[in-house]
């Protein structure tokens, strides 16, 4: 409950600071917040769009939450999501039937996990700081996926995107005219699974123990290397799924933009969600839904208040800064 109140407080501070910034830059703060927080509720299409926006953020948020639980700062969801999306594109290239969908998950998750394993192994066996290594992997993935998307897998009909998912392999909108697909429920189930895993399973127990006190955990027979690898592996899976869904469940294009527009920044949003959710998988789920709402609102803000979309990202940064002040008691015991 205290965590929830802290999050509300951080939102209040961000809204106040944001109002000043918006006013100084010549926008109407009232119109900005009206379009961000009220307009999304005025139409069912907007609500479903907010849920669709939240879908990948739930999954990348889980990646960061899994790291946080084990006392790790895994910033690699960004690059792992790119790799997951690349996997879906490769699957569309290999199979022209419904088979492309399961194949997407296999290839996408494998690539994302492979991407997560590099920093995990470097951390476990060479002691390399995971913040630096995951960011480097993000940038390597960025250029790699841009290259692949604009060469081997580019769409000859539409140069700004890759080849599309075969129609029979797509996750199409559940209600026609909206953008809500089964992908949303995949993400919700993933959050419940991760919650169960962390709270009820042996792996979760080991991660939590190592996160609270790595020395005591090691003495109790839980090697740090195993903890790092499990945490990054599971995180790679959820981010990989996020990437796959951004292609397979992304109407109307069902492809990856060659400038990575439909996957760019999702890893950072996930970090925000996990921090707002206090590293708890269910908290992360709620926070991601809220962020999805904010970003859907930001699209209306762009249209109605003429305010740049990134205003919402600035608000999120301020929220986390306020949280940093209070988060101390929660996980910082390492």
């Amino acid at each position, binding site marked *: 409950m205290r965590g929830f109140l802290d999050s509300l407080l951080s939102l209040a501070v961000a809204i106040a600071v944001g109002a000043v910034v918006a006013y100084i830059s010549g926008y109407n703060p009232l119109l900005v917040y009206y379009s961000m927080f009220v307009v999304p509720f005025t139409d069912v299409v907007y609500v479903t769009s907010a849920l669709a926006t939240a879908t990948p953020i739930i999954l990348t948020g889980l990646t960061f939450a899994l790291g946080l639980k084990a006392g790790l700062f895994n910033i690699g969801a960004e690059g792992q999501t790119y790799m997951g999306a690349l996997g879906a594109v490769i699957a569309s290239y290999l199979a022209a039937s419904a088979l492309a969908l399961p194949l997407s998950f296999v290839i996408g998750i494998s690539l994302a996990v492979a991407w997560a394993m590099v920093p995990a192994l470097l951390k476990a066996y060479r002691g390399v700081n995971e*913040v630096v290594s995951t960011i480097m992997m*993000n940038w390597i993935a960025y250029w790699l996926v841009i290259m692949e998307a604009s060469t081997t897998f580019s769409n000859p009909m539409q140069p700004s995107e890759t080849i599309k998912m075969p129609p029979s392999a797509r996750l199409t909108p559940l209600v026609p005219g909206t953008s809500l697909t089964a992908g949303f429920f995949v993400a919700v189930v993933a959050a419940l699974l991760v919650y169960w895993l962390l709270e009820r399973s042996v792996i979760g127990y080991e991660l939590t123990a190592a996160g609270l006190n790595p020395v005591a955990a090691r003495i109790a027979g839980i090697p740090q290397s195993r903890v790092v690898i499990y945490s990054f592996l599971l995180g790679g899976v959820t981010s990989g799924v996020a990437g796959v869904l951004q292609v397979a469940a992304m109407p109307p294009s069902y492809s990856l933009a060659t400038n990575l527009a439909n996957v760019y920044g999702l890893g950072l949003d996930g970090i925000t969600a996990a921090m707002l959710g206090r590293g708890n998988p269910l908290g992360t789920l709620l926070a991601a839904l809220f962020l999805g709402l904010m970003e859907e609102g930001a699209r209306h803000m762009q249209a109605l208040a003429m305010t740049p979309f990134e205003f919402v990202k600035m608000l999120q940064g301020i929220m986390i800064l306020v949280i940093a002040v209070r988060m101390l008691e929660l996980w910082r015991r390492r």
Partner: protein
Amino acid sequence: MLLTQTIHAAVPILLAAVGEILAERSGVVNIGLEGLMLIGAFVGVLVGDVAGSGLIGVAAAWAVGLLLGLLHGAIAVYIRGDQLVAGVAMNLFGAGLVAYGIQAVWHVAGYRQTPSWALVDVNAMTVLAFAVAGAMWYILSRTRLGVAIRASGEDPEAAYSVGIDVFKIRLFSTAVGASLASLGGAYLSLAYLSVVTKDISAGRGFIALADVVFANWNPLLAIAGALIFGFFDALSYWLQIFGVARYEVTRMLPYIATLLVVAGVIGRAKPPRALGKPFRKE
């Protein structure tokens, strides 16, 4: 040519790394260098453009970095908040603010050429950066102030018991450290690249963090590290110009090099003992 490009490419990493060494030697981690660099790049062009002077732009970027560093320092030192979370927040805030600001101020999406009247001489800033690194080494290893800073990061209780104000030392080390990262950003936008984009720092803030470890918290070794990273940065453009490989491949080089270098040197690196641990009076 490759040599001068290497030196020029090393400057932002060097400034940020030297600043971080100062902060970490006093006991405070700031992983928000990337965000500070972005903000410095943006503020430099904004103020330089309006004031009609690149130097004023540089000074403004430095001052804003100092203020944000005071904020991070206050959170880390007095409120005993989470330093890593605050650093991540700075990165998120910087990315949002700069992308927003570029559109709000110039009404263009994510890209603004620095006007000619706001440009600053690349070589002058390069000399400044290397001088700062040398001065930082001297201060940290040869002066009483340096002893006080290092003591605050190694054993704050002992430092406090001999009359060193650990709180103030940490606050100002963090602030000055952050101001150098922001200065590195102003170098990017006002001198080296003469443009400001929403991702102009391109991971350099994190490469600087890697350089800190590589340098074993020594500003002189940080010069060597920054030059290594600068070399791969410069090399990537050369390979691209000569058509050796696609530019996407060459652009990966600095990041791959950073990974290899940190993987290779870990083990002999020894961080300050009280790094990241908030100090409280008995």
